[in-house]
């Protein structure tokens, strides 16, 4: 935590942490406490006076069917994104790990979607699936499948899942590959001498040894799907059709900035904060446990 030798006491360290602490207080701690405070208030229609209502906003939130549905959709969305992108990335990392020639080239070609902004990823997928012009929509139609994500809620959901997973594959791939390269070669070699084939070796040696990486990535992917996919939803579906793709982050924005329901939006913010804090705590407990090994 602290160096054994350090500098003599002086006011200097306070000066050094000041910029970061100021920004943290002004833009993080103050707004967060405002959100918590506001979530306990109800404002009248003109925003002139507000009334303290304790947990009414939360009760309203959790008895609201629309919010409940949005919660369910978010869970579905994030588990499918995590499953799809983790599965694909694991397969690709396992194949890239056993290749000798060209591995770096493959890696280069697989990592760049990480650099694409969510909203841009949304634009790309929206374009190829555009119901009137999109090339994939056209192919699907030729196969007899009618694609229109502007009208069909399930198709809209599928589209944002594709776009979100597509962007996340590179991230997962890099971590899986790094994890696999850290596994001692002697283990797989010993198994190979005992006659285990590549697939068997993967399931009995590589996959169990990767479990810390997999767990870490699972949490990161859920965080990603919960919070960083706002741009995709906003660009592709705007939560529609009929709220079919309204995930929680989008709803906070929509209720707060478009619907101007301050108390309700603040209560939703608080719920989201609770989710992030839970996920971060889980993540850190796991890191501590790993250190003990």
């Amino acid at each position, binding site marked *: 935590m602290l160096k054994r030798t350090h500098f003599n006491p002086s006011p200097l360290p306070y000066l050094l942490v000041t910029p970061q602490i100021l920004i943290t207080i002004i833009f993080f701690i103050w707004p967060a406490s405002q959100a918590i405070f506001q979530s306990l208030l109800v404002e009248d229609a003109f925003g002139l006076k507000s009334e303290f209502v304790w947990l009414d906003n939360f009760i309203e939130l959790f008895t609201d069917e629309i919010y409940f549905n949005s919660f369910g959709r978010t869970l579905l969305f994030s588990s499918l994104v995590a499953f799809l992108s983790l599965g*694909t990335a694991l397969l690709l990392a396992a194949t890239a790990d056993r290749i000798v020639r060209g591995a770096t080239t493959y890696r280069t070609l*697989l990592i760049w979607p990480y650099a694409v902004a969510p909203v841009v990823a949304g634009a790309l997928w929206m374009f190829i699936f555009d119901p009137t012009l999109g090339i994939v929509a056209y192919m699907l139609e030729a196969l007899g499948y009618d694609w229109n994500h502007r009208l069909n809620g399930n198709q809209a959901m599928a589209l944002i899942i594709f776009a979100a997973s597509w962007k996340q594959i590179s991230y997962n791939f890099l971590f899986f590959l790094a994890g696999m390269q850290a596994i001692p070669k002697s283990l797989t070699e010993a198994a190979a001498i005992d006659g285990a084939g590549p697939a068997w070796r993967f399931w009995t040696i590589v996959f169990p040894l990767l479990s810390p990486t997999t767990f870490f990535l699972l949490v990161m992917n859920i965080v990603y799907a919960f919070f960083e996919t706002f741009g995709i939803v906003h660009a592709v579906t705007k939560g529609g059709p009929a709220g079919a793709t309204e995930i929680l982050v989008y709803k906070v924005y929509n209720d707060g900035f478009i619907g101007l329901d301050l108390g309700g939006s603040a209560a939703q913010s608080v719920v989201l904060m609770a989710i992030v804090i839970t996920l971060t705590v889980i993540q850190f407990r796991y890191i501590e446990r790993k250190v003990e090994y």
Partner: protein
Amino acid sequence: MVENRPLTNFCSHAVLIFAIAIIAFPIWITFVAASHDAVRMTQTPLPLLPGDQFFINLKDTFTQGVGNAREQSVGLMLMNSLIMAMMIAVGKIIISLLSAFAIVYFRFPFRMGFFWMIFVTLMLPVEVRILPTFEVVANLGMLNNYWGLSIPLIASATATFMFRQVFLTVPDELLEAARIDGAGPMRFFKDILIPVSRTNIAALFVILFIYGWNQYLWPLLITTDKNMYTIVMGIKQMLEAAEESPEWHLIMMTTLLAMLPPIVVVVGMQKLFIKGLTETEK
């Protein structure tokens, strides 16, 4: 590789090539769309092979602008994105270096309190506190300028943690030697700590540049002045306009331009990028 299995090797290459083809498909289509003229882009099926209008579209995108966004130039939006990304990346690195230095090399009251305050920022992504943060920024008069775009995103627990980790691995002998030679804290920081953590700074810069460039929700909230739009936001405006006048060839050209800088950074500085990614997140 453990043993030689030609068939499995062949399959591995096939799987990877197939996956790359799928992953690259959206980008290929974007590139193709950006190289055709407006008329061709309204006829189905859309082309799968590039046309010959690429440079004409490139010129048009910069000189005419696109869709509703016609009044704001693509060049200006790219510039805004660049300034915002640079301010966020450089700002985060500077304040994290300073606070990590204070936390590792000094013993002072409330040291752990400060450490936890920084840690809290890890738990509060901008998405969960948008309304109150917006109010703070509005009250400070930081709407529609570069300060408002970058400063609220500058505090970063991950960068501080990473530098703390790096500083902890710096041998104590370096500090002792510096002190014997009469160097003060800032001298030590500038002449020894910064040079030894050079690679980490560069790796972090790559990650933070991409983070800054790709910001969307925050600029969307606090910019109403067209001259402050970033390119990532601009694309959203164009998509909305596309419902009335689909100028897909120009929209896709702008999309390519918006993707290019971060992709060049990731691919060009691959080693640093991977280092930065795996070290900040763990």
